[in-house]
């Protein structure tokens, strides 16, 4: 035991941090499966009637076959134990909707959402940080007032409404944005590597497909980003105002450094730590909150999949989605902490 302890502390800080987080992460995922399993059981509604038509549902033989096929005839603890047993083998069960393994479904829908959320995140970071920094520098001037209105609008406008309006204006009226979906109608998807069309087309050198994919992602990504732009702008402004007031920023000015360096290196650095935290939470929220944007823009992502699965009480699919979202949250949180430690040398991991 003491040998184990000694060798544990002999590990590098970083590795110890990652291992500890992974261990906690596995426990969390276990909890998520249990909770989503219980929730799918206690909600009123019966997967049988949700998946079978009226006629089939009134036939006891069909119902019995359906229950047996999806393991619904077994006692609940046994169902859960069975689920876990398959889970450790990488099997998330079969979707009652698509009749395919849930892992296959996730492999198809998840990359679309990650692609969309990542694009939105990049936009949100670029605009949010830029606007926040400008607002802080021009504090109480007209740029600050204008940016305050923009960010307030960003966090206030309902996403689904914004999605519909932008689609109406930029596609139907102005015709400068392409229509819904990930590619033009009938467009051929690039060879599946990551299932993110922009990246796959780039990797295989299909430039036409790449530009189509990019043009299709801009509008939904912008709509998805708006809320996060607002919140990142506000956080950046507050963090910049705080750090601009610090003694070390005055020191930097006293050293005669150009104002650009003072702001982008000396004042930004501590603000970045705060921004990374907000951005991490925002990314998780985007992944789990894309359903409205995905519906309006017919984006075949995890949000739509989760929505359809929930309507159909597709137990395995719901649990699969919950698990995947939990894993992403855990990974993003770990990444945030790692980046935080990179930014601030006072923070020690481990």
């Amino acid at each position, binding site marked *: 035991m003491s040998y184990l302890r000694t060798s544990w502390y002999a590990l590098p800080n970083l590795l110890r941090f990652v291992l500890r987080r992974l261990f906690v992460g596995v426990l969390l995922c276990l909890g998520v499966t249990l909770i989503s399993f219980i929730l799918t059981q206690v909600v009123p509604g019966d997967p049988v009637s949700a998946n079978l038509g009226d006629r089939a549902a009134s036939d006891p033989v069909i119902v019995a076959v359906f229950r047996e096929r999806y393991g619904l005839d077994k006692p609940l603890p046994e169902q859960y134990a069975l689920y876990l047993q398959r889970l450790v083998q990488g099997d998330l069960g079969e979707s009652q909707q698509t009749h395919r393994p849930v892992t296959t479904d996730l492999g198809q829908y998840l990359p679309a959402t990650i692609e969309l959320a990542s694009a939105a995140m990049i936009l949100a970071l670029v605009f949010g940080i830029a606007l926040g920094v400008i607002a802080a520098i021009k504090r109480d001037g007209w740029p600050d007032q204008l940016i305050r209105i923009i960010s307030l609008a960003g966090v206030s406008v309902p996403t689904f409404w914004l999605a519909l309006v932008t689609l109406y204006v930029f596609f139907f009226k102005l015709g400068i944005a392409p229509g819904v979906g990930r590619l033009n109608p009938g467009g051929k998807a690039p060879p599946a590597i990551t299932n993110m069309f922009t990246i796959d087309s780039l990797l295989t050198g299909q430039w036409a497909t790449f530009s189509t994919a990019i043009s299709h992602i801009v509008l939904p990504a912008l709509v998805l980003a708006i809320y996060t732009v607002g919140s990142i702008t506000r956080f950046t402004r507050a963090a910049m105002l705080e750090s601009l007031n610090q003694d*070390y920023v005055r020191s930097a000015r006293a050293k005669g450094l150009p104002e650009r360096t003072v702001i982008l290196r000396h004042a930004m650095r501590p603000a970045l730590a705060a921004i990374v935290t907000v951005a991490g939470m925002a990314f998780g929220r985007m992944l789990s909150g894309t359903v409205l944007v995905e519906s309006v823009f017919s984006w075949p992502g995890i949000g739509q999949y989760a929505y359809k699965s929930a309507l159909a009480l597709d137990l395995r699919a719901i649990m699969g989605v919950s698990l995947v979202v939990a894993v992403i949250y855990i990974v993003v949180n770990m990444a945030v902490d790692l980046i935080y430690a990179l930014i601030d040398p006072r923070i020690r991991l481990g």
Partner: protein
Amino acid sequence: MASVSTKPPLLSIEGLTISLPTAEGQRAEAVRGVDLAIGRGEIVGLAGESGSGKTLTALSVLGLLPGGARPVGRILFEERDLLASGRAARSVRGAEVAMVFQDPMTALHPMLSIGRQMTEHVRFHLRLSQHAADTVAVEMLDRVRIPNPREAMTRYPHQFSGGMRQRIAIASALAAGPKLLIADEPTTALDVTVQAGILRLIEGLRRELQLSVLLITHDLGVMSALADRVYVMYAGRVVERGARADVLAQPRHPYTRGLLDALPHGSPSDHPLRALPGSPPAIGRFPAGCAFHPRCRFAEDICRADVPDLMPVAPGRAIACPIDPLAAVPA
């Protein structure tokens, strides 16, 4: 060093007045007609309580006054007027005039390595490569007696003690080879045992680097250890100036005298500690006439009516007081 030099001083502040916006939307003068000169290699002390305008005076030399502050007058650095030309002010800041601040715990950037903070302005001002700037920085860290300077470059401020951080801050300020160092209460935030080391360091650097120093402090003890000449400020004005030994041994202005009487060291029991009554007036509420008269035990009617000019009383010595306390009360 009280001699009247024929060479022009390194820094010459002439008739500097700084007004600040007040909460009522008016403007109040926080510094009123200050004249101050620093020769090459000279350490000049600027003493006064908080609110006396000493820090504002120093910040105006670097062009770092807080937003809304408006300086009027002339600040000549090697004959360039820093107030008249923003370009001159920018070219001097950090390169020829450097500043060290009070609190070394907050003055260094917590997230940038010592090496980065030692070299970035050196590279910018002297247009050196990173390697050459590193060499300069290591040499300067060694000069301020940081052990293992090369290794210290890779570390961060939180890994050093307060005294070490102040040494690093001084080294960083001096790395670009400035001619004038402005030190604003450089020892106030430090332990007494560490203070003496920092003062000795500044004294040594002055000799080795032919450095001029403007030392701002409310602590006349620090002043007496270091300064060649002393300026005493009260309510935005210089009320006394002279050679350090003269001013400290024979204060001529009642305010200077009050400050010295309040010092715990000096003559023993026959000269009891005497606190200066009252507190310094706030900016915008300076009393009419001599601003010190409400707290002055020698005050007469003339003090309430007229603002006393800073009048020479001996070579290199001037006081702004119509009543010479030397004459009024036997010392």
